[in-house]
C-alpha cells in the first residue's frame, strides 16, 4: 500500500461515515453539516484521483453554494436546536431504494472496468475544457438553456405584484418630488424672522 492508498482509504471511510450520519441524524442542521463533510470527502477523492478541477468545482458549487442555501433555508424555517421527530415513515423504502441504487452502480462499474488498474494521471484543466466545449458542446448548451429557463421561472414565481416592491435604491427624482410644506405663520412676535420653508444647506 502506498501513501496514496492509505489517504484514499481514510477519505473513503470519512465520507462514508458522514454520509450515513446525514441520513440517521435527527437534527436537520447537523445533517446538513455532515453533508458538508461528505461532499468535501468526495472532493478529496477527486483530488486523489488527479481531477483537481473537478475537486475545486465540487467545493465551490456544493460546499460553497448548495450547502449555504440549504442552511439558509433551514434558518428561515424554525431551525430548532436539538433533535426533532422524524416527520415521515418512508425510511424503509428509502433504505431499500438506496441499497438497490448502490448495488446497480457497483455492478455497472465492475462490469465496465473489472480488475484492471487504471494508471493514475493528472487531468489537465485544458482537457476538461476541450471535452466540454468541443466534443459535448451541444448537450452542454442544452443543459445551460434548461437551467436558464428554470432560473427565469423562479424569478417569475418569486416576483412581487406591481406596486408591492420596495423603494428604488438611489432615487434621482426624490429631490424634485419633495412636497413644499404649507407656509406656517409664526412670525407674530416682532423682531422674529419668519422661519424659512427650506432647510439651509
Amino acid at each position, binding site marked *: 500500500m502506498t501513501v496514496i492508498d492509505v489517504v484514499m482509504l481514510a477519505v473513503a471511510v470519512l465520507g462514508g461515515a458522514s454520509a450515513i450520519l446525514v441520513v440517521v441524524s435527527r437534527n436537520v442542521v447537523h445533517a446538513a453539516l455532515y453533508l458538508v463533510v461528505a461532499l468535501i470527502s468526495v472532493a478529496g477523492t477527486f483530488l486523489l484521483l488527479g481531477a483537481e478541477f473537478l475537486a475545486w468545482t465540487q467545493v465551490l458549487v456544493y460546499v460553497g453554494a448548495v450547502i449555504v442555501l440549504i442552511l439558509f433555508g433551514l434558518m428561515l424555517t424554525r431551525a430548532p436546536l436539538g433533535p426533532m421527530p422524524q416527520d415521515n415513515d418512508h425510511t424503509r423504502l428509502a433504505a431499500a431504494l438506496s441499497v438497490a441504487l448502490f448495488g446497480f452502480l457497483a455492478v455497472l462499474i465492475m462490469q465496465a472496468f473489472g480488475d484492471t488498474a487504471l494508471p493514475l494521471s493528472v487531468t489537465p484543466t485544458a482537457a476538461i475544457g476541450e471535452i466540454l466545449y468541443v466534443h459535448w458542446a451541444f448537450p452542454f448548451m442544452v443543459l445551460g438553456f434548461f437551467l436558464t429557463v428554470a432560473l427565469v421561472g423562479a424569478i417569475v414565481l418569486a416576483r412581487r405584484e406591481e406596486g408591492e416592491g420596495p423603494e428604488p435604491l*438611489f432615487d*434621482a427624482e426624490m*429631490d424634485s418630488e419633495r412636497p413644499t410644506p404649507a407656509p406656517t405663520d409664526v412670525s407674530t412676535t416682532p423682531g422674529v424672522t419668519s422661519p424659512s420653508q427650506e432647510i439651509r*444647506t
Partner: protein
Amino acid sequence: MPATLPQIGLLKGLALTLKTMLKPATTAQYPHVKPALPPRSRGVIALMEENCTVCMLCARECPDWCIYIDSHKEVVPPKDEGARARTRNVLDRFAIDFALCMYCGICIEVCPFDALFWSPEFEYSTYSIRELTHEKEQLRAWMDTVPAPPELEVGAELPKEIADGLAAARKAAEQASAAVTAAADAAPAAAKEGAGPTATAVEEDIHVEVQIDQAVFDQLIAEGKTERVARAKAKAAYVRAEKARIRAERESGQ
C-alpha cells in the same frame, strides 16, 4: 439643494477622513499630560478648617446628605477677670462622602464663613467605595490646590466685598491726594500729577496671562511639595511678579 453628481458625496467623505488623518490628532494623553482645568472646575470640595464654626448649614442644605460633622463644645476661660466664660464649638469630624456627593456646590454657596471651596483637583479615585469618604485632614490638604477665582468678564458687576474695598481705597487715595495738594502749595501741578496714577492704579486691573514661574516651581518640587500645589504657587508667584513689573513699568513711564 444644488444638483450634485451622483456618488460625489462618497468621495467628499473619503477626502474628509483622509484630510483628518493627515492632521494632528486632538487626543489628550491624560496621565502623561495633565489637563489645564479652569479655576471654577468642580473637582473636589476643600475645607478651610480654621474658618469652620460648625454651624451645620452645609450639612443641612446638602441635597443628598453626604456631609458628616461631629463637634463638641468647649468652655473658653474668660479673657477679663469676672467676665462670663464663653463656649465655642470645636470641630471633631468633617467628612464628605464623595460617593454620594453630586457636586452641586450648594454647601459651598451656603457657607457663611468661607470655609468651603471648589478645587479643580480630580485625581482621587479609589478602588473601594468606602475610601471615597474623605475626612477633614484630607479636605484641608486640598485647600492648597484651590486657585484664585478668575477675573470677571467685562461689564460684570463686581462682588460686594471687592466693590467696597475698591471704594474704600479710592476714598483713601482721594484723601491722600487732597492732603498732598493741601500740603504742597509750592508745586501744586507736580503734586497733582503724582497723585493721579495712585488713584487710578487701584481701579486699573492689570491682566496677566497666567504662566508658571519655573524657578519657584522647581524649588517647591525640591522641597517635596506635590506637583499641583507647586504649580498653583508657581503660577501665583509668576502673576505677582508680572503685575509688579507692569506696575513698575507704568510708573517709570510716567
